[in-house]
């Protein structure tokens, strides 16, 4: 190692090196892109969306798989989202959970001791990255599905009613699901617990709560975060209208992020 000494200006702070939100965003983007598992997970998610879209389209060529009025060409690309969402959930939780499990969080909070901006920067980066990747994969799935269905009369086009909203809505759904998972991960500071909680809210509660014949539980099920999928479904396929369902998921995300930020600020690193 060299014994090079550092020269320092004797007067004046190095004030150009201050922490700003854009710089935190850049740091979070570097963190996001420099861990192999992140890029692998996104690849898996992309394959799930495109793959299941293709499978649904091929299987439904001769039949009206989704019932009256719901075009196969519009729905098939969305099917893969229900599988891919699990990958995005894991991505969101791991985004902060891995910082706690490796101790990286102490480095992050040393660089950004006001803490809240670091959490928000991570949320924004994950939210935008998941939106972009999922939107591209859904659009690719859409065109692949239409190609598979081109010989039938089940194909859809972008101009069909609701189709554009469903595609954008699916990307929004996945993006907010990622950010919501991040907030849960930040609250429990543990990857396994975070994933269990989100999967519980998303898959287990909606499946098992309705079995219990108690009316309040049936109401609760209507307000779980998973009802956000209304934004990617044709009208009438969900208990809520598209944007009401999305607003519920958005509310879960916002509340989760606020709670995470408050706890982050208050607790020891």
């Amino acid at each position, binding site marked *: 190692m060299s014994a090079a000494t550092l020269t320092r200006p004797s007067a004046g702070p190095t004030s150009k090196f201050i*922490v700003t939100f854009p710089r935190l965003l850049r740091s979070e983007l570097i*963190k996001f892109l420099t861990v192999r598992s992140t890029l692998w997970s996104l690849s898996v998610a992309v394959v799930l969306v495109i793959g299941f879209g293709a499978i649904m389209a091929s299987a439904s060529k001769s039949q009206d798989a989704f019932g009256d009025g719901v075009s196969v060409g519009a729905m098939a690309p969305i099917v893969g989202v229900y599988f891919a969402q699990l990958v995005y959930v894991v991505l969101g939780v791991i985004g902060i959970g891995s910082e706690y499990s490796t101790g990286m969080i102490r480095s992050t*909070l040393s660089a950004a001791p006001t803490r809240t901006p670091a959490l928000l920067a991570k949320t924004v980066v994950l939210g935008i990255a998941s939106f972009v990747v999922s939107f591209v994969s859904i659009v690719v799935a859409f065109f692949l599905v239409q190609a598979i269905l081109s010989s039938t009369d089940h194909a859809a086009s972008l101009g069909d009613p609701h189709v554009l909203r469903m595609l954008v809505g699916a990307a929004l759904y996945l993006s907010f699901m990622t950010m919501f998972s991040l907030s849960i991960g930040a609250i429990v500071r543990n990857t396994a617990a975070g994933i269990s909680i989100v999967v519980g809210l998303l898959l287990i509660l909606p499946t098992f709560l309705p079995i219990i014949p108690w009316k309040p539980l049936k109401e609760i099920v209507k307000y779980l975060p998973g009802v956000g999928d209304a934004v990617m479904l044709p009208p009438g396929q969900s208990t809520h209208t598209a944007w009401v369902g999305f607003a519920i998921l958005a509310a879960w995300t916002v509340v989760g992020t606020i709670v995470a930020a408050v706890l982050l600020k208050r607790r020891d690193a």
Partner: protein
Amino acid sequence: MIEVQNLTKRYGHKTAVDGVSFTVAPGIVTGFLGPNGAGKSTTMRMIVGLDRPTHGSVTVNGKPYAAHRSPLTEVGALLDAKAVHTGRSAYNHLRAMAATHGIPLSRVHEVIEMTGLQSVAKKRVGGFSLGMGQRLGIAVALLGNPRTLLLDEPVNGLDPEGVLWVRQLVRSLASEGRTVFLSSHLMSEMALTADHIVVIGRGKILADAPVSQILAAASGNGVRVRSPQATLLAELIAPTGAQVTSSEPGLLYVNGADAAAIGELAASSGVVLHELTPIETTLEAAYMELTADSVEYHSAPTGPSGPPAISRPTTTLTGGK
């Protein structure tokens, strides 16, 4: 400059840091010593805002750490070299840290070179040895060219070349006017590196003084004298106020008078001296004395006990800068 005022940290019933106050001055190397569990790491974590104090305050260059707009240029901290994502390369970790402050890539390359990480910079941190991980931690601490350095066990796992490098680096940084605060259990290194020592035990400050003063006040200092007229010499020394002990005939151990004074006293009274040896205590012995009552985790003794019994000071040392 780090100012700690009445800092307290409680975890439930346990008080890890108990009303601690001290100042770490710029331009010198200040060592932070204490037994395991004494509260060293907790205190250092509170300095950089990772832990919230229960009471009291700590400021760095006049402001709490979190109030600085450029924290990494104010304080470079190595508290836990393992605070890195194992799946990321050292280079990318440094890039991510540098990006938060807009520190340029050239600086990242500079610290990689300074810490000797060039050959492993692009490798995953998970595969690093203890020493390489430690060098990465030092690289991160130096990234912002900080005015203050906070190092918790910086030479842990380093080879002798690395230990020497850290000692030289730390001394040269202090001589540039920076504040250097480092903790270590390696007494011999600390004695060579530090100018000022703060000793903590069971959450309380036991000593806060220049190294020379801590060594001088320890009881291990003295003069060993062998003389056929030992008893006579002891009687001659007694009025000067120095303590004289004798463990065998003809051997005296004098505490509180220097060798020259004893020699002159012997000569003026015609006492023959066979040996006149100044004994200097080590920082290790002085530290053991200070913290004898404060050790949390005692090891079981093995074999015959080591150092001879030493008297404990009855007052706490605090000294000037």
